[in-house]
């Protein structure tokens, strides 16, 4: 039995002399690893007399523990090992393009759809090419009615002259919906609309609208006003309030324009709101009885309300996007900004 190989002082001195964390692994191997004196001593235990075994065993265990403790202390003093690879630079860039972006109009449309879905509405859709009945006549625009001149219509070379057209508003979807199902109806109708008008910063021949329709027993103008208030505060925030002023649309009566307090100046008056503190958002009103008669709903039993506004206008107001053409140029810098 020879315990002289287990020279703890020499081992600790060697550990203390180490100058790099990397050396400690070698020392551990040399002092307590496979083939080390401590290893060999432990291996030799089974050949010893039974009486000697605990003594030698304890000596080896004590030596090993002390070496491990010294290694740990020295490792703590030296700090982590120097990496073998060059340093990582995660600011180099991304791997590929990352995620893409929904068009800002789609984002806005989804946001509004979700607000109304949470109020119990469904989302209805219809064709962009319409007939005169759905776009005008059933909506209480008789032929030759001056209100038709309010909307510059793009006609399509189908059917009789001026019978088929690109819808000037999403309102024909109201008619299709009421023709296809009995009340109650609570629906919003987003979609693309067309006007034959000169393009400027705020107007485009092609744009999007979202329209709402509610038909039920006992609906009132107050319900319309409350619904619009709920929507404007959900989209623009609580500090925005809405205002309703009498207006005219053939398919609603009473009709109103609805405006919100200017989001740019908090209603203090600025260039965007022409110093009025108000920004016009869209039109609304109670469904005209003639519209109900056109689709076979009894206007004595049911009342309803409708409202509509331009979709592009929402992000134009929220972010100041202009001109409206920006939405359709698909400049990738614009698309990836939102």
């Amino acid at each position: 039995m020879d315990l002289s190989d287990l020279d703890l002082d020499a081992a600790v001195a060697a550990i203390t002399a180490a100058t790099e964390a990397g050396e400690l692994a070698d020392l551990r191997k040399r002092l307590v690893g496979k083939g080390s004196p401590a290893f060999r001593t432990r291996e030799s235990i089974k050949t010893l007399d039974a009486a000697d075994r605990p003594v030698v065993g304890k000596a080896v265990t004590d030596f090993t523990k002390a070496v491990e403790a010294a290694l740990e202390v020295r490792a703590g003093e030296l700090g982590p090992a120097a990496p073998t690879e060059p340093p990582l630079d995660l600011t180099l860039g991304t791997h590929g393009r990352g995620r893409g972006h929904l068009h800002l109009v789609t984002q806005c449309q989804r946001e509004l759809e979700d607000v109304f879905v949470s109020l119990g509405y469904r989302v209805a859709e219809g064709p962009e090419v319409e007939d005169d009945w759905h776009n005008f006549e059933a909506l209480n625009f008789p032929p030759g009615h001056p209100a038709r001149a309010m909307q510059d219509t793009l006609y399509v070379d189908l059917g009789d002259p001026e019978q088929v057209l690109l819808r000037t508003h999403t309102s024909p979807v109201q008619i299709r919906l009421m023709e296809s199902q009995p009340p109650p109806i609570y629906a919003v109708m987003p979609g693309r609309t067309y006007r034959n008008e000169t393009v400027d910063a705020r107007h485009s021949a092609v744009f999007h609208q979202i329209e709402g329709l509610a038909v039920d027993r006992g609906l009132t103008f107050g319900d319309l006003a409350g619904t619009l208030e709920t929507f404007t505060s959900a989209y623009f925030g609580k500090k925005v309030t809405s205002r309703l002023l009498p207006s005219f649309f053939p398919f609603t009566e009473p009709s109103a324009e609805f405006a919100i307090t200017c989001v740019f100046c908090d209603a203090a008056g600025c260039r965007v709101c022409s110093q009025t503190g108000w920004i016009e958002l869209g039109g609304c009103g109670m469904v005209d009885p003639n519209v109900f008669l056109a689709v076979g709903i009894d206007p004595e039993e049911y009342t309803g309300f409708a409202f509509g506004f331009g979709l592009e206008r929402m992000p134009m107001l929220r972010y100041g996007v202009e001109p409206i053409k920006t939405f359709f140029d698909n400049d990738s810098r614009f698309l990836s900004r939102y």
Partner: protein
Amino acid sequence: MRVPLSWLTDFVALDAEPRAIAEALDRLGLEVEALDAPGEEITGVKVARILEVRPHPNADKLQLCDIEFGDGTTTVVCGAPNVVNGMVVAYAPSGATLPGGFKLERRKIRGEVSDGMLCSSRELGLGEEHDGILPLASDAELGMDVRDLLGLHDVVFDLSVTPNRSDAMSIVGVARDLAAHFGVPLTVAEPTVDVSGDASDISVLVEAVERAPRFTARQVGVTMGPSPDWMQRRLTLAGMRPISNVVDVTNYVMLERGQPSHAFDLDRLRGPGLVVRTAQVGETLTTLDDVERKLVPSDLLICDADRRPQAIAGIMGGAEAEVHDGTTGIVLEVAYFAPMGISMTSKRLGLRSEASARFERGVDPNGVMRASDRVVELLAEVAGAPIGPPAIDEYPTVVARERIRVRPGRVGAVLGVELDGAQVRESLRPLGIDIEEIDGDAEAFTAIAPTYRPDLVREIDVVEEVGRRIGLDSIPRTLPHTTEQGGGLTARQRARRLVADVMVGLGHSEAMTLPLIAEADLSRIGVDPAATVRATNALSAEEPVLRPAILPGLLKSVAHNAGLGLSDVALFELGHVFGVPPKGQLLPDERDHLAFVASGTMRRGPVEPDRPVDVYDATDALHAIVDALQLTGVETTTADHSGYLRGRAASVVVGGVTIGAVGELDPAVLASFGALAPAVAFEVDLDPLLAGDRRDQAFAPLSRYPAAAMDLAFVLDESVPAAAVVATIRKAGGELLEDARVFDEFRSEALGVGRRSLAVALRFRAPDRTLKDTELNAVWQACIDAVVKHHRAELRS
């Protein structure tokens, strides 16, 4: 409609501030687009007379005007066509200011010094008129401040009047609403005229009674001259240019009462009388604006007794019998024309006038004679009109006032406010609506609408009036109880959102292109433009085609980006396309398409090198959509498609039906759009995709036993699609084969032309046990045998 405050106060006493009046007008539905106080911003502008107009030596379109302005003379440069010697004008000298904060300075214009300028109506903030210099009263005192002359200390409400409110196209009508709103009386004096003699000096024949239900004419002697300052001032503030006393009076009454009228020069009519008839085919008339108008039988004409056209009824007078400096007698025509006819002719001719705007909304048939008397009353005052004979009044069927049954309970129920019967009745009376109780009907009363409110016909029209009176904004806001219906998106709407989200997740951005495109855009991608639907009156005549595909629009967007130095883009669009209508259907075959284009390079760096886009960028997107929608049975089979490179495209097939194409775009096609190669794309019909078979989604227990992975490589003919090989392996592998995937494609001379090697990675696993070597070898061999047999393949060792 421009409404000067001073004119309103002729009829209603308003002591509110202009801002408060504007607010009231807004609340009444008479939207104030602008509140003009032109005098606030004008300083130093004086009345001047033009002494001589001389040509500008260096500019054809400019002139030099020598002017005198009371205490001096000077010269200004002027480009207006209407300046003449002796004309009295508004002169803004250097140092003067004009609306918009514009300050005048002495400056050279094409080498000639201009000492200030002469002003048009628009420059003085008096409306949009900008065709020439505003002429002032010829007897105006030179050097006078134009604000005093023109009454520019006034305030003008510029109203946007909705098509239903014909009554509000007049000062009196606006005053009536304001009187009701502020609870003060409306005072409109009845005109007083003296008449004598026999009306039969002139004749009137109305042949088209349904188009002119009321027609009046009277003969009036006049002395021509300018109208007085006060009248010119009001007309100018209202945005009309003063012309002569006779014309100004008719315009004045039109603005005041909403009733247009027309003065014909009696001597220039062929025959002293008027005939009202529709036009004949081929007839023409030169109108006051010196434009020859071609007429059609739906146009209504006012002719002289000789049946020669002298005016397009309700729209514009003719040049021939226009009043002029030498006119001594006029035939004054005041009528009620049917709105629809006026609207149609005005629209057809593209000719809108102050008169047509009023007739097409509907004037008051019972106010016609009062307006005629008002014109004569004013002519007596300003044009020395002697007492004339009474008017001829052709009014065979008197238009009765509408009698409307109104239930106050219903009014409250529609508006959502508690209103008692008295409140409803009292809110209507100030608008000129009379109330009559109905015997034995406690629920309702009869509202008798004035004939100046043709928009009041039904109970709901009266509901709107009550709403206006109480203020729509003061109605308590409530929410409907939508308990009968749950909100939500349809399965299709959710699937469409998912498709867009998948594309976005892959790094592609959503575009929105215009659905109206050019024929050439279609030809470029090899689509026949003949089989399309088009707009007949598109403003942009070059782009009349309703897109049958989205790809051309996306390629234009790709080109637009490339032009901005943004050549690496990946765009998709989800939107409607239009095909010719199916047989028996009026409307086009309209459906949703999904299209995608990626161009340039796919950025991978710096970790890997960037790489050019390749066709797998397109098919990967399709596969991701197929996976997200849990579809099965969607295949891509190699086939040529127009727009794509030959041999580098495939059909997208669902349930055996081709729903679109995918592939590498032809560089020539890209170049024709101004886009750069390489670019890859797909376009598919969305609904067949959404309606495709869904894969079995029943849960299968996940085996916990070890897997065995093996690779196989085969040499086969190029004509054998990899998908067919994988399908054969899957069939042969049965339930023990968990996954099979091609991981390498290889060609070489040694393999021979038309042959390639495909390497497939297989993973086997049993659901209930560890696979024994013998089992594994058997199934592995079965896979090899199947491929060798079915595809004339050789196993590579």
